[in-house]
């Protein structure tokens, strides 16, 4: 280790940040010590509730009320600003002038949600150059010139006109670039990035990470990067710190930590990340015993259009084609993954197949009850009830998908009640059995959903889905809202159920890794079109379409040794 010869920019020593709650003090950050060095990136990894975000906000004293720093020190060493001597940020008043002169000038910060983190009613240029106006005293004209310069630095096209535009006119990736430009306004020594790529598509994430690296190389700033994604860590970190429940479990050089994790929890996180890079063993084993069957569902030229504006007496009506003539085929016992980025139409396609949405044209041929194929595209809601008994859904949002006003027992029994299955007594037994199948105690029945965690709620959702003995389950981003370590558990549960109950899955995800783990075949969508489909492994190893190639090249690999070994391609659609 060369850490003895380097001098840190920032030293966090035994930091404790706590929130006063009705049930007493809650320590969100509990005795955390970290060092940050110029020109290096420290990644703090943790799941929700780990305190990583509160820790990063403690540095600038911008923790939301009622949180406050209780003890410990945050030593900021002199940097480019010319300020002399070490200063302890933890001792400063959150509203005092000293900390204000540091915020945005010596330490800048970027956040997760580029949309909500920018004011929607102020122009980009105004917001980007604001810290320069505050700290460097630039006038309006100079600030504008600085803003243009900064926008050019973060590679926003046409910065002269972009400077006068509003955030809502930008895409998510462009907004995050503008955020970064904003943070660079005073050329800070330290950049704190709080999950800056979590809300972005993976191809955009790759570009943003690249941009951060380039900037770091030219100005030598220290980056504190907060993330939950081990792949991202492997991609950019020099050092890693792992946090859980407010405590620091492990810290060290990224290569050491990945090669030889000390803490059990770090191993769990790494395992979960590595899992997503290969097919599930369980799935492969299952396919050996039980080969795939006949196709049970086929779509033919399935198309979904939305009317954007009604137009003036039918003239000038604008249409948006959400799904272009999709043809897919699902066989009995098979898992198909539909993968794509936001706006690719993957969810719309799934909802059309399930006929939650109506279909503009095309056919959905489904073997109802295993009999002959039947086109379910033109059916009405009441005719679809039988289809819906066999074709079930698990939603993404574990909070919104369960009625908070019904007990878990009532929720799971609902499909049984509506389909007239069983008596009230037998349904009760069935609910207990279902809860057991998804790994929850039968006492859960009497409780309301809000008593459960996200992962548990997703289990309840799954229990409801399998209640009427379905043949096909559509899992729409069913694991995206969950922490990494829970994701694999839920996917393994789904595979387990597949084996026991003879199910097929249509798995919708933006995450290629999950699809690779879970699905036999995959369908890649881009802007409403299916650009490629086939065996998952074939596509992952040898993608044919340029978009698939760029998508796969953007996926970070959870191994720092493979850093920079992939050539990134950027996909631009040719009109």
């Amino acid at each position, binding site marked *: 280790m060369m850490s003895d010869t380097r001098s840190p920019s920032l030293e966090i020593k035994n930091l404790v940040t706590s929130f006063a709650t009705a049930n007493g003090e809650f320590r969100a950050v509990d005795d955390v010590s970290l060092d940050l060095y110029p020109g290096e990136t420290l990644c703090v990894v943790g799941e929700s509730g780990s305190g990583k975000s509160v820790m990063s906000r403690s540095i600038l004293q911008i923790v*939301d009320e009622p949180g406050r720093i209780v003890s410990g020190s945050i030593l900021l060493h002199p940097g480019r600003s010319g300020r002399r001597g070490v200063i302890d940020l933890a001792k400063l008043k959150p509203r005092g002038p000293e900390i*204000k002169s540091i915020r*945005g000038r010596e330490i800048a910060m970027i956040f997760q949600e580029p949309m909500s983190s920018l004011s929607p009613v102020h122009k980009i240029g105004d917001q980007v150059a604001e810290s320069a106006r505050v700290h460097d005293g630039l006038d309006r004209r100079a600030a504008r010139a600085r803003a243009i310069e900064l926008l050019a630095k973060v590679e926003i096209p046409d910065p002269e006109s972009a400077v006068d535009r509003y955030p809502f006119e930008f895409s998510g990736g462009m907004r995050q670039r503008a955020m970064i430009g904003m943070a660079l*306004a005073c050329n800070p020594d330290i950049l704190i990035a709080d999950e800056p790529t979590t809300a972005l598509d993976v191809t955009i994430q790759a570009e943003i990470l690249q941009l951060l690296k380039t900037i770091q190389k030219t100005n030598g700033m220290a980056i504190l990067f907060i993330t939950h994604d081990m792949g991202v860590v492997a991609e950019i970190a020099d050092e890693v710190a792992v946090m859980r429940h407010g405590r620091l479990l492990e810290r060290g050089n990224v290569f050491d930590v990945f090669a030889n994790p000390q803490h059990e929890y770090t191993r769990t996180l790494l395992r979960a990340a590595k899992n997503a890079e290969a097919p599930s063993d369980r799935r492969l084993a299952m396919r050996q015993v039980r080969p795939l069957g006949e196709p049970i569902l086929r779509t033919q030229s399935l198309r979904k259009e939305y009317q954007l504006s009604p137009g003036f007496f039918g003239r000038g009506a604008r249409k948006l084609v959400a799904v272009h003539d999709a043809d897919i085929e699902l066989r009995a016992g098979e898992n198909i993954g539909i993968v794509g980025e936001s706006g690719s139409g993957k969810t719309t396609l799934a909802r059309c197949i399930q006929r939650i949405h109506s279909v503009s044209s095309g056919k959905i041929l489904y073997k109802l009850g295993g009999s002959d194929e039947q086109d379910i595209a033109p059916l009405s809601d009441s005719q679809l009830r039988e289809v819906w008994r066999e074709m079930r859904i698990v939603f993404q949002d574990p909070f919104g998908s369960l009625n908070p006003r019904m007990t878990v027992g009532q929720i799971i029994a609902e499909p049984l009640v509506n389909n007239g299955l069983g008596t009230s007594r037998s349904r009760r037994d069935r609910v207990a059995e279902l809860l057991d199948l998804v790994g929850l105690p039968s006492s859960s029945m009497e409780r309301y959903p809000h008593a459960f965690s996200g992962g548990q709620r997703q289990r309840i959702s799954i229990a409801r889905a399998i209640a009427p003995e379905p043949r096909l389950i559509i899992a729409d981003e069913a694991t995206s809202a969950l922490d990494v370590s829970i994701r694999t558990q839920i996917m393994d549960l789904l595979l387990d159920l597949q084996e026991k109950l003879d199910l097929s899955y249509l798995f919708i995800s933006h995450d290629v890794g999950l699809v690779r783990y879970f699905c036999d075949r995959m369908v890649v969508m881009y802007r409403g079109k299916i650009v490629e489909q086939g065996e998952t492994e074939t596509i992952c190893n040898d993608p044919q379409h340029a978009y698939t190639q760029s998508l796969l090249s953007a996926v970070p690999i959870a191994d720092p040794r493979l850093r920079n070994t992939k050539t990134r391609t950027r996909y631009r659609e040719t009109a």
Partner: protein
Amino acid sequence: MLAYILRRTLWSIPFLIGASFLAFVIIQAPPGDYLTTYAAKLEAAGQSVDTARLNSLRDRFGLDEPFIAQYWKWITNILRGDFGMSFEWQQPVADLVGERMLFSIILALSTILFTWAVALPVGVYSAIRKYTAGDYVVTVIGFIGLATPNFLVALTLMYFGVVYLGADVTGLFSPQYATAPWSWAKLLDLLSHLVIPVVIIGMSSTASLIRIMRANLLDELYKPYVTTARAKGLGELKLLLKYPVRLALNPFVSTIGWAFPQIISGSTIVAFVLSLPTADPLMLQALMSQDMYLAGAFILLLCILSIVGMLVSDILLAVVDPRIRYN
């Protein structure tokens, strides 16, 4: 922006048509038509009824024609500036409404300005000093303002004026100016008389706007963009005014849309109690005596005033919120 204003203005045309239709329904609602009432009135007053004149009037307003035709005749006449006849005043309605509508408009505008001028700073104060003594005082006063019928306040003020001050708080002018020609002194006199009605009429909308501003701002105060601005090193006050207050203003501006009809509505009764020379007391009198063309004209004009107020508020909203402008 211009396109938006144009589009929004065109949008209010169906509203105007709807309002005129409503006003006409009200004119037609009393049993019997206007002329039978008129004839009855004349007879009751012991005057002779001129049948020929009645017939010509009947013809002029198309009283024998179906409802829609009558409406058409009425509305086309109005577009030509003819609001019909007031049988009580024996004058064309158009001559009666002019100045009174002007005072109504002045009253409504002053009230809305007052409402804003008070609600905005108080609402902001109440939000940033949440759960302090000042906030509670504002909240309590706000609730009382919301709950007390404004005519009751008007009566109470009158009572105190008469009993304790010996002063008359009614009217919009001191006696010496009431019939005098316009001058600076008369204008000042008008302004000083406006204070009480404006405060009374504006009371409940001010109270509700304060609550809206407070809630809006509380929503905005903890948004991520505020944290972003704080992380840039902005001072708290500057930050507050530039970001959350600015954003909380948008829904606040849009509330004028409904505050305006409410203010016009509230002024009806206060103007009556304080005998202000606005449209309202005359309208009330016309309704009581079933002088329906006069009443209808007032109802129509007040509705138009409301619609125009909404239009202005929507345009203002587009001015302060680029998201609407660009949509």
